[in-house]
């Protein structure tokens, strides 16, 4: 049974680098040894006050679904644009007995996912998993897992551009007033132009949504394929934009509707192919370039989902095991 997530702050002495004075003076005064970084840093790197500040912003974000709450984002040992928003949100809510999962482009073994997971393993010692069902906190970039999320789970999204209308109106003060005045005509104007030129809405990722019939929101650059998973979800969805210093949230069971016209309703892209490894036809697929003569292979983007289907398939009563199993093995090597 999933334990209820306890979120008590850890009591590790704060030895943050930012307490003024030149770096050398700090290093000398704390004779930081060359052992692993874990000993000298706070639990999950950020000091407790910063975490409290971020949690306060998150509470406001949950209270106003879809509204971008400014927060004093800090520099992280990761470059901006590589997940600092998501990391600060995860760092401020993670507790000792959480089970943490990190995916990028849908899979746990993508380089940046590996890097972020290692960061949290060293700085929190928290249990990590590659299985969606086991995780209490899932930090993601560009995908929502195929496996349906359960009550109590928290999705943390890494967000590059939090403002859904940024490409239509570069000025931040102007977009903030459009939100305040609930004036989203500009959004429909864009969709109108899209349909006029291309006979359909051609936004393929970061497809804007209306949250709780009030705030226009960028779901982060997930494919439109994943948008429906945000609507009336059992889980809590938290969005962190580090460089732009904004957090926003979708509480459980909130109405999330993708912007569309009644006679040009939101549609999800489909594929003719199926996963070469687990045969799935309803999951988002990655295209593998095999040669320069156009040879392509399609595999599930969500590696956990793919392997879970393989495990189910390899039970006797399921479909032909050999081919699936061998394909699965090949997938392991690739991972």
């Amino acid at each position, binding site marked *: 049974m999933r334990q209820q997530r306890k979120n008590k702050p850890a009591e590790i002495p704060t030895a943050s680098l930012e307490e003024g004075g030149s770096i050398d003076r700090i290093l000398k005064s704390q004779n930081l*040894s060359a052992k692993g970084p874990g000993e000298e840093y706070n639990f999950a790197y950020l000091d407790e006050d910063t975490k409290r500040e971020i949690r306060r912003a998150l509470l406001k974000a949950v209270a106003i679904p879809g509204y971008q709450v400014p927060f004093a984002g800090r520099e992280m040992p990761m470059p901006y644009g590589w997940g600092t928003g998501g990391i600060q949100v995860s760092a401020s809510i993670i507790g000792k007995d959480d089970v943490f999962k990190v995916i990028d482009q849908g899979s746990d073994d993508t380089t940046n996912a590996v890097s972020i997971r290692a960061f949290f393993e060293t700085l929190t010692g928290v249990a990590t998993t590659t299985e969606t069902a086991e995780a209490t906190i899932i930090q993601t970039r560009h995908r929502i897992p195929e496996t349906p999320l359960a009550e109590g789970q928290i999705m943390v999204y890494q967000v590059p551009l939090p403002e859904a209308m940024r490409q239509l109106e570069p000025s931040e003060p102007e977009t903030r007033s459009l939100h305040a005045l609930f004036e989203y005509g500009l959004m429909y104007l864009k969709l109108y132009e899209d349909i006029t030129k291309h006979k359909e809405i051609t936004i393929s990722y970061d497809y804007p949504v209306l949250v709780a019939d009030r705030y226009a929101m960028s779901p982060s650059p997930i494919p439109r394929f994943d948008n429906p998973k945000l609507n009336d979800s059992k889980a809590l969805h938290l969005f962190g934009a580090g460089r732009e210093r904004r957090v926003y949230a979708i509480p459980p069971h909130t109405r999330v509707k993708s912007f569309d016209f009644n006679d040009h309703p939101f549609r999800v892209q489909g594929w003719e192919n199926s996963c070469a490894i687990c045969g799935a036809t309803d999951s988002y697929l990655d295209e593998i370039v095999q040669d320069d003569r156009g040879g392509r292979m399609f595999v599930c983007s969500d590696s956990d989902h793919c392997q879970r289907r393989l495990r189910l398939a390899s039970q006797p009563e399921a479909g032909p095991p050999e081919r699936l199993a061998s394909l699965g093995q090949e997938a392991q090597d690739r991972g």
Partner: protein
Amino acid sequence: MYVAVKGGQKAITEAHKLLEETRRGDLSVPEISLAQIQNQMGLAVDRVQAEGSLYAPKLAALATKQAKGDLVEAIFLLRAARASLKRFGYSEPIETASMRARRRVSGTFKDIPGGQILGPTFDYTHRLLKRSLMDGGQAPPGGAPIPIAKGPGAQPGADGLGGELLGVATILEREGILETVGTAPEDGEPFDLTRQPLEVPLARPGRLQALARADEGFLLALAYSSQRGFGSVHPFVAELKLGPVELGFRAPELGMPITVGEIEVTECQTANQFKGGAGKPPMFTRGYGLTFGHNERKALSMAIVDRALRAGELGEAIKGPAQNPEFVLYHGDNVEASGFVSHIKLPHYVDFQAELSMLRAMRKKFNGSGGPPEPDDKDE
């Protein structure tokens, strides 16, 4: 009796003697050697070569040492040195396809022929200060470039250099989804900023040369602004490559090109969203960046700004400075920029005197008339 201040020359000599002392610094510290700069400060050297527009690692190292680490000064030194060199011809176009890449990544596909080769990169490192590098620390074990994803195609050789890799851009181009680029005109010499004055509008080859020599910080900011809405570039990295390429030269006597050596370059090809327009079909459009040495951030920024500057050609709305060739091309060169910005240090007391007396006269008039004119609400 007032004696005008003289001794300018003396002051300059003394100042430069002081500069030499501070450049050398504490005599108890061993002097830094060019080899150390070239090997341990390679990225600095590479930036000086790229923006100095001269492939000469040793000279770039010297310039960096002489400039006390001030790279803009070093770039200036290299540019000046370059101007003194006689030009005896143009090399053959380098074939980046045959680059023996030490690093080669693509953001567009999970696996690509020849695999994604991480190579020597800061990517995915945790930006935590490494105590091990403190004085007396031992150097970390050498790492060979491990491909993160094994795929068909060439395996990295013993010296860590990959064989010929099938370019991702080439694959997309063959599928027809990525725009093809016209081949460079066979005859005639390529446009060369150092031999012809920069004029706007400038054809793309000229723009690319200007961007290759432009200040990295400037291009970085422009690229960033274009991504954040002040422009409409949505770039995907089709391929980013780093490694040596052969340099061919067609000596008049021989009549055929011979390889005169290898140079290290960084090449970035982006595929950008384009929903069709200005008579062109929906497709991915190209952005291109190429620099001497290892200048990844510069190559990426260059590719984004190159694509942004093509907004007019592709009928896109102009929404920011990154799309304005005049703004980008006239302000990108940091040798020009640093020169003009710091020229205000030069004596200007003649002009200042003129301005001073003008202001005094205007203030007298201003105060004499009893302050600013009241609102004219008095009747006719």
